[in-house]
């Protein structure tokens, strides 16, 4: 049926007409105004239809009494807060600060979210907060739960300090060593990790962070997702997964570099992962992992490269595996391990 044959009752059912009257659509408005000019005899029907639609309303708009409105509102907020604590999403944050044994201090970051790094550790105000301290011996990996529900996998030879309750506007912890964090997301309370030389503030998802205090070089390696690295006085750096930001304190520069995610983070699953690593570093890792002291005979070249992977294996098995391909034998006496060339004794 054509518009020219429409009655008011037909107009009120027409989608295009409603578009004009109810939704104030410009295009529709232009059409109908023009159409009215062309068809003046239909004007009254049109206007009545329009009138009908506009006048459909509650005679007396009912409104919730103030006290009930407020009561429900308060219940909702309370429920929301209660629920937030129980059901918050978790961020996967692995934090790795690795210290190299080279003189220069270097920070390496791979972030999955916005992180602010301050080079100096600005001392916080002295407040009497009850702190908890957890220290792991070498080879003593253990999980830790923070007061906000954040799960931490603390690696061996590490230390973590945190308050019994995160009371203020942020969640602050101190870390020495290496840890894998699964941080409970809370956009109102940034998660801050302090270590001797710098501070890392997490405003978002996941990253790896490791800080080992005594050594000279510090690496912060962080993973997954796209990330912006900001450091005071430096150009921000945009990163993707498997890229690390390397901060060199000597040159004061921030540079992006590829890195091997697996080597940095496999420890948390109990995996020993060596990827083209010189034997020196391999034995170093074994010392930390198993809490032993390794003495290597001078005939063994510590520069030899080794690649291999072990999951939850005993030291004997690992040494056997490495020794097989690298050509050495070993003996274990309590915490003392000796490595010597095949055939010798």
């Amino acid at each position, binding site marked *: 049926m054509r518009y020219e044959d429409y009655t008011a*009752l037909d107009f009120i059912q027409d989608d295009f007409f409603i578009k004009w009257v109810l939704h104030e659509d410009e295009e529709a408005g232009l059409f109908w105004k023009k159409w009215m000019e062309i068809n003046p005899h239909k004007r009254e029907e049109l206007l009545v239809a329009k009138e009908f639609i506009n006048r459909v309303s509650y005679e007396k708009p009912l409104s919730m009494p103030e006290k009930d409105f407020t009561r429900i509102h308060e219940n909702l907020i309370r429920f929301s807060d209660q629920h937030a604590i129980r059901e918050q999403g978790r961020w996967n944050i692995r934090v790795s600060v690795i210290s190299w044994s080279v003189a220069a201090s270097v920070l390496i970051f791979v972030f999955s979210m916005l992180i602010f790094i301050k080079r100096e550790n600005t001392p916080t105000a002295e407040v009497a907060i009850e702190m908890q301290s957890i220290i792991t011996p070498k080879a003593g990996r253990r999980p830790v739960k923070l007061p906000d529900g954040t799960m931490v996998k603390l690696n061996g030879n590490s230390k973590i300090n945190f308050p019994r309750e995160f009371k203020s506007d942020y969640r602050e912890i101190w870390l020495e060593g290496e840890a894998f964090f699964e941080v409970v997301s809370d956009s109102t309370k940034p998660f801050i990790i302090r270590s001797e030389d710098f501070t890392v503030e997490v405003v978002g998802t996941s990253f790896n962070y490791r800080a080992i205090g005594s050594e000279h070089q510090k690496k912060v390696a962080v993973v997954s997702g796209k990330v912006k690295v900001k450091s005071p006085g430096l150009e921000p750096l945009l990163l993707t997964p498997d890229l690390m930001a390397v901060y060199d304190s000597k040159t004061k520069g921030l540079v992006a570099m590829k890195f091997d995610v697996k080597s940095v983070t496999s420890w948390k699953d109990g995996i020993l992962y060596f990827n083209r690593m010189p034997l020196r570093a391999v034995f170093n890792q074994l010392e930390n992992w198993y809490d032993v002291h390794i003495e290597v005979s001078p005939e063994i070249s510590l520069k030899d490269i080794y690649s291999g992977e072990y999951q939850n294996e005993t030291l004997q098995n690992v040494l056997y595996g490495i020794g097989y391909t690298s050509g050495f034998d070993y003996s274990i006496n309590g915490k003392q391990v000796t490595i010597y060339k095949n055939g010798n004794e």
Partner: protein
Amino acid sequence: MDYHLSPDKSNSEEQSTYPQLSLNQSEEKVWQDFTRGSNTALSFIYRKYADSLFNYGMQFADEDAVYDAIQDLFYDLIRNRHKLGEAKNIKSYLYASLRRKILKSRIKHKNELSQSTVEDKMAFKMAVSHEDPLPLLNVNTEDLQLLQKACNQLPEKQREAIILHFYEKMPYEELARILKVGKVKSARALVYRAVENLRTMLDGHRDELIIVLIGFFSFRQF
């Protein structure tokens, strides 16, 4: 963070404004913030829709049931906030959920409801306004009463369809969602049938009467 929260609830001017139908930019942001845990966003959504939800709910239930349903509805939203996707249409989503909750509770308390309560609560009962905004056309009290009678003879669902479509400005897709009629064309058919019923009931009287009178009626709830 401020989302230009609506003025005092008691502001009557606010009440007379027709609620917006579709999401605009700022509402999408609000919804997103809500799913991420913002209480400010939660408050905004509550303040914006509580009254109209109340209005709507009161069509088929008493105060207490409506309060419970509204609160429950928001509790569900809060519980599932992380899982919620983009808001295609907050309003019809809320309406559809409220309706479902109220009807569910009605079934539960069916035995508790006294006969009189059920009868009094004829949902979406309409009343014809006595005001005369179109002085050019002749209308008398009898005509208005006739129209009122015709409107109230429409099946409940058709009355609801009319009010949701014309007052709450829900397009047919959302109407279908709220009324749970499956297909969009079924929602359209509801409105069509309502209007045609009116046309039939008022048939025999002057066409002009039909047109004009329909322009006068409004809905009243108890």
